[in-house]
């Protein structure tokens, strides 16, 4: 009786989430702005990679003390400063290009034209010149990242408005496409140029010479800065897992998280290069290597518990799930156990998984682990942990994560295992049902293999 009541509440809760969270996820995934931001941040990867390399390589002479190495770095070490300026120093500019590309692509606009317009608009408000006419680019780096996002969206929207309402100079039929496209750009260019020059001068007169990116940063600082606090990080990690629990990929959150992660990583790299104290724990590297260690919800403990289970089914799921888990992929666990929509595993997966995932971040905060300065590519879990901050202690902390994960999931798994063993006993007599109906199977005909 009690069991039934419990099921009822869970179903009510599930229904509630289905009516709220799923439509939100759907909206986010289909929102052209958020999708463009998400895709744009993904292509910042080469920029961040170069930035990390430029920060890490100059410390080579500390490890290899050969005179030739020291010599080379003394003579040519400046190239790393150059790489750093070209990559992280211009990350805002790259972001405006990438986001306007993806947004104009989704609106089926002339993409390269939109990118040019957005870049011009961004440079008008974010660049400065000194008395000698030299460019001052200090806001084209991560300080300009959020400005870049807004400007890309506004510029592309203006361009779209002009095209939609035919406020563009149209060439007669027969004129080559690229020629007419360039004429099309004349009116929106004028509009965007005037608009952003006006914005710049207004900001200038209101603030006494402060640039727009700084104003936006000041405005967003409380929101962005809050992600440095573990008290904010924990609910966010939980929320990622809530999405997963309802079968929604947590990439739904990345339009909000990834620009911040990109900004944080570039600030960390810059601080590392300057020999200053690093401050940010949330980067894409941290999220992937630690929060999603062996997959969302740090499910490695559950995999290990399944491998030694007496249930045939769980043993099989464990075997399928082990290898991908070591590369941080745990869909076989999420869907195979399943964790998704499984009331027994909801609490340990969401609240426990988020805590185990946050453990390395706590270690960073108390000085037991280096802060992240690199977003590793897809590599096995322990290597990924090491590469994030080039710290071997990451491996030890990940071993602790494995242990904690095991003891977190074990008691709940035992409940599932007991149910499953009873089921297996019963189902020896009954036939299992297939997703393929007999009618469909007939269609396969000769191709049944």
């Amino acid at each position, binding site marked *: 009786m009690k069991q039934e009541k419990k099921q009822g509440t869970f179903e009510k809760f599930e229904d509630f989430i289905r009516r709220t969270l799923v439509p939100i996820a759907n909206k986010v995934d289909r929102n052209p702005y958020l999708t463009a931001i998400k895709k744009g941040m993904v292509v910042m990867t080469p920029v961040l990679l170069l930035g990390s390399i430029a920060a890490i390589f100059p410390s080579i002479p500390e490890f290899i003390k050969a005179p030739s190495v020291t010599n080379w770095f003394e003579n040519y070490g400046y190239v790393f400063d150059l790489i750093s300026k070209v990559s992280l120093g211009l990350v805002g500019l790259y972001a405006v290009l990438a986001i306007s590309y993806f947004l104009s692509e989704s609106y089926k606009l002339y993409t390269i034209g939109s990118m040019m317009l957005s870049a011009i608009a961004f440079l008008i408000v974010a660049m400065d010149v000194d008395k000698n006419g030299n460019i001052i680019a200090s806001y084209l780096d991560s300080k300009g990242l959020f400005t870049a996002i807004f400007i890309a969206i506004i510029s592309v929207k203006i361009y779209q408005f002009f095209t939609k309402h035919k406020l563009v100079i149209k060439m007669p039929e027969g004129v080559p496409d690229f020629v007419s496209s360039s004429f099309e750009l004349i009116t929106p260019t004028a509009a965007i140029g005037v608009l952003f020059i006006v914005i710049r001068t207004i900001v200038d007169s209101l603030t006494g010479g402060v640039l727009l990116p700084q104003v936006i940063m000041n405005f967003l600082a409380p929101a962005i800065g809050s992600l440095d606090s573990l008290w904010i990080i924990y609910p966010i990690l939980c929320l990622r897992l809530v999405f997963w629990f309802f079968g*929604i990929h947590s990439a739904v959150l990345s339009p909000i998280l990834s620009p911040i992660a990109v900004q944080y990583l570039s600030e960390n790299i810059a601080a590392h290069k300057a020999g200053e104290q690093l401050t940010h724990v949330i980067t894409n590297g941290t999220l992937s290597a630690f929060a999603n260690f062996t997959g969302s919800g740090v499910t490695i403990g559950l995999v290990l518990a399944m491998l030694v289970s007496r249930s045939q089914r769980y043993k099989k799921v464990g075997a399928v799930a082990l290898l991908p888990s070591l590369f941080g992929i745990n869909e076989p666990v999420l869907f195979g156990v399943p964790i998704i929509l499984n009331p027994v595993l909801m609490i340990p997966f969401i609240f426990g998984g988020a805590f185990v995932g946050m453990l390395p971040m706590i270690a960073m905060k108390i000085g037991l682990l280096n802060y992240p300065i690199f977003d590793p590519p*897809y590599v096995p879990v322990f290597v990924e942990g090491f590469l994030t901050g080039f710290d071997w202690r990451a491996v030890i902390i990940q071993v602790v994560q494995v242990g904690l994960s095991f003891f977190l999931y074990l008691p709940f798994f035992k409940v599932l295992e007991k149910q499953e063993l009873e089921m297996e006993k019963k189902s020896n007599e009954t036939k299992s049902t297939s997703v393929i109906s007999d009618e469909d199977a007939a269609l396969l005909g000769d191709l049944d293999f």
Partner: protein
Amino acid sequence: MKILLVCAGGFSTTMMMEAMKKVVKQSQKLAEKDYPMEAIGVDKLDRYLQEYDVILVGPQLSHKYDYIKEEADKLQKPTVLLTSDIYGAMDGATVMKQALIAYRKNKLAQ
């Protein structure tokens, strides 16, 4: 018959794809060269959709399935939303069968 597998990042569908390729390889009746497959993240869908005959969608994208189906329907390509249990078990044989059935049904409907 060209098969396209779609998930969020293209990682877990790559596993599914490998399982399916193994089934095709071991099968007496199916030849590998007849079934080119690719696993992609959903963000790349519009660039790939045109070239493929069957679209298989991972269960973690069930909230997006309507959109994917809509896009595929425009090009008259069949879609299959994979269920959690087959996906979790990485059951390549069943998914391969589902793909073949969807393809044949689509052919018959046209």
